[in-house]
């Protein structure tokens, strides 16, 4: 499914067409440029030792912005760890992502306020959690018409092999859960190509579960937006679940720790460069005369400003205070942990004033 070709030609599809204004398309363009810009800054910050690791989304901007902009305020999103573009659409500040990669926290945004859950690193776990959440939406009667709620869960091509993803599909089917399974097939799970996970195109798996599966050009923001909107509407009106396979490409390394030259050819990358998600929108905006140079300059300036702020925030992030590891492990005070915390703080105190002869540190 495609609505905008890599050459920036608008094409039409009988089932999934979309009406888009100049302003809306400029908005999608801006989203993608800004997200790409801070993503690149994340890489640079890691190289400069400011982050322990960065997980780049380069190449997946259209998939994420299309899906992210299809979500309404009522919907809930469950990300994996690469969904910086979806986070952006949910109003999570890019700087709120930094702590995870700098090692100060596991995510600082409020998952309820933003209706965007925390990042999940264990491959596939969030798919079952999203399904359970969607079951809850249905059990509470929030499904049935255009005002209904839906859930969208993000995972990769590699994740489709995990039991949790299979079970999520089974549960969602059995309980008519209003959940959109949004698989970004970026062709790689670290060093393993999609053929290591499946014989069939991934979207075809939906058939076995008894719900629709659609492959969309994940580098086409219009197509991703249209299909995601349709899928979410199916869910909110009580016709879920739906599987979307966004066919895209991981243009960068798996993470900043990875060296993709060990397992994939530069040719492949070059071929995908021609399908760049941002460039085709730029070409279309120009062709339609929907944007002038001033607009592009403005977005460029805005993105540089965003990146500068991102960097500034990162390098000034304070280390968390000692003792922080003991907070919020449990909802209620836990006596063993409280004792360990006190013992640890006493121990640290002993260093500050060696003459007091601290007790504790081990038992």
């Amino acid at each position, binding site marked *: 499914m495609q609505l905008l070709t890599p050459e920036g030609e608008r094409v039409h599809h009988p089932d999934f067409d979309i009406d888009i204004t100049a302003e809306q398309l400029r908005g999608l363009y801006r989203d993608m440029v800004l997200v790409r810009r801070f993503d690149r800054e994340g890489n640079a910050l890691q190289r400069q030792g400011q982050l*322990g*690791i960065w997980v780049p989304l380069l190449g997946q901007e259209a998939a994420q912005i299309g899906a992210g902009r299809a979500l309404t305020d009522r919907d809930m999103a469950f990300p994996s*760890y690469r969904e910086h573009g979806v986070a952006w659409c949910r109003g999570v500040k890019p700087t709120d992502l930094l*702590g*995870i*990669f*700098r*090692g*100060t*926290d*596991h995510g600082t945004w409020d998952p309820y306020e933003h209706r965007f859950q925390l990042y999940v*690193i*264990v*491959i*596939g776990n969030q798919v079952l959690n999203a399904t359970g959440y969607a079951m809850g939406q249905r059990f509470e009667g929030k499904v049935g018409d255009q005002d209904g709620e839906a859930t969208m869960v993000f995972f990769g091509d*590699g*994740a489709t*092999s*995990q*039991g*949790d993803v299979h079970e999520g599909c089974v549960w969602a089917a059995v309980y008519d859960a209003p959940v959109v399974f949004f698989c970004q097939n970026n062709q790689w*799970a*670290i*060093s*393993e190509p999609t053929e*290591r*996970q499946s014989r069939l195109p991934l979207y075809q798996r939906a058939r076995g579960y008894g719900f629709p599966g659609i492959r969309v050009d994940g580098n086409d923001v219009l197509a991703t937006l249209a299909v995601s909107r349709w899928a979410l509407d199916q869910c909110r009106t009580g016709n879920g679940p739906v599987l979307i396979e966004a066919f895209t490409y991981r243009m960068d390394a798996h993470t900043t*720790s*990875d060296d993709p030259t*060990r*397992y994939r050819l530069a040719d492949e990358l070059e071929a995908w460069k021609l399908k760049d998600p941002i460039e085709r929108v730029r070409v279309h905006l120009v062709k339609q005369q929907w944007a002038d140079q001033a607009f592009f300059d403005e977005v460029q300036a805005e993105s540089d400003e965003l990146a500068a702020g991102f960097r500034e925030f990162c390098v000034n992030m304070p*280390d*968390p205070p*000692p*003792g*922080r*590891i*003991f907070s919020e*492990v449990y909802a209620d005070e836990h006596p*063993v*942990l409280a004792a*360990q915390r006190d013992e*640890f703080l006493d*121990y640290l105190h*002993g*260093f500050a004033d060696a003459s007091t002869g*601290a*007790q504790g*540190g*081990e*038992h």
Partner: protein
Amino acid sequence: MVAPAMDRTVKTASATQKLTMAKGLNMGLRAAMEADPKVLVMGEDVGKLGGVYRITDGLQKDFGEQRVLDTPLAESGIVGTAVGLAIRGFRPVCEIQFDGFVFPAFDQIVSQLAKLHFRSQGRVKMPVVIRIPFGGGIGAVEHHSESPESYFAHTAGLRVVSCSNPLDAYWMIQQAIECDDPVIFFEPKRRYHERAQEVDLSVPPQPLFSSRVLRQGSSATLVCYGPMVRTCLDAATAAAEDGIDLEVIDLRTLSPLDLDPVFASVRKTGRLIAVSEAPRESSLTAEIATRVQQECFYSLEAPVLRVTGFDTPYPPSKLEDDFLPDLDRVLHAVDRSLAW
């Protein structure tokens, strides 16, 4: 008949080499695969990439895709199919990419791998090795720094070991592959690429399920394993400058525990400090303390002390130095023991 690992000592001039732990494991895996065509390596990214830590580097190139499998991304699948391959007579070596990702496989490990020999009255052998890079200190994101060894040591039917140096890595992986029981093989990932050590491959290895006194001492005993061995040896060196003479024991085997050398040591020093990165409650250090007070009650001059991780989730990496036992915390415990 496959030649036993014991007999694979190197008899040529190249017996003395400089090895990192990563290289030792890689060479050990290679030796085991050469010795026995039934040995398979399987896991995520272990083939073409050679593993995210390059422990299996070059093996797929030399042994082919049928002996070094880049599996689909599912740990339950990796271990569950390894169980089936073992039923068929293979000796699979599974790599779990990081400690925190073993849990999808926990069911297969506990329900099938650990119990099949017992259930089949010994008819079905389970010579499966599960390699797990474990422990913290590498500045990683969540789930990449955990020490889950107690879960496995608590499970009947599993054997659990941890190497702490390049030479042990080379031999222990081969001995584990040779073992007819399932072995959970914990590799201290932060030590993988530490300074290479000179090793002599012509000396036969000691038995796998045995601990070892690494440093003789008289003041107090440190017992440790995996990543904490280096920490304890460093602590002993530092303590020596203050005239404190620490004995250091590397457990090597976590199940079965080989505590006789620990008992002998405690009878000599009267003091024991058990050191581990794992959380404290219901852990291996708890087991060690119990057994030592039972066996050495009259020799103890101080209670057995523990230096461990805390009973919290592993923290974000900027806080991991608070969580992990380090030289200072070990020495602090030594002081407390001596002052008792």
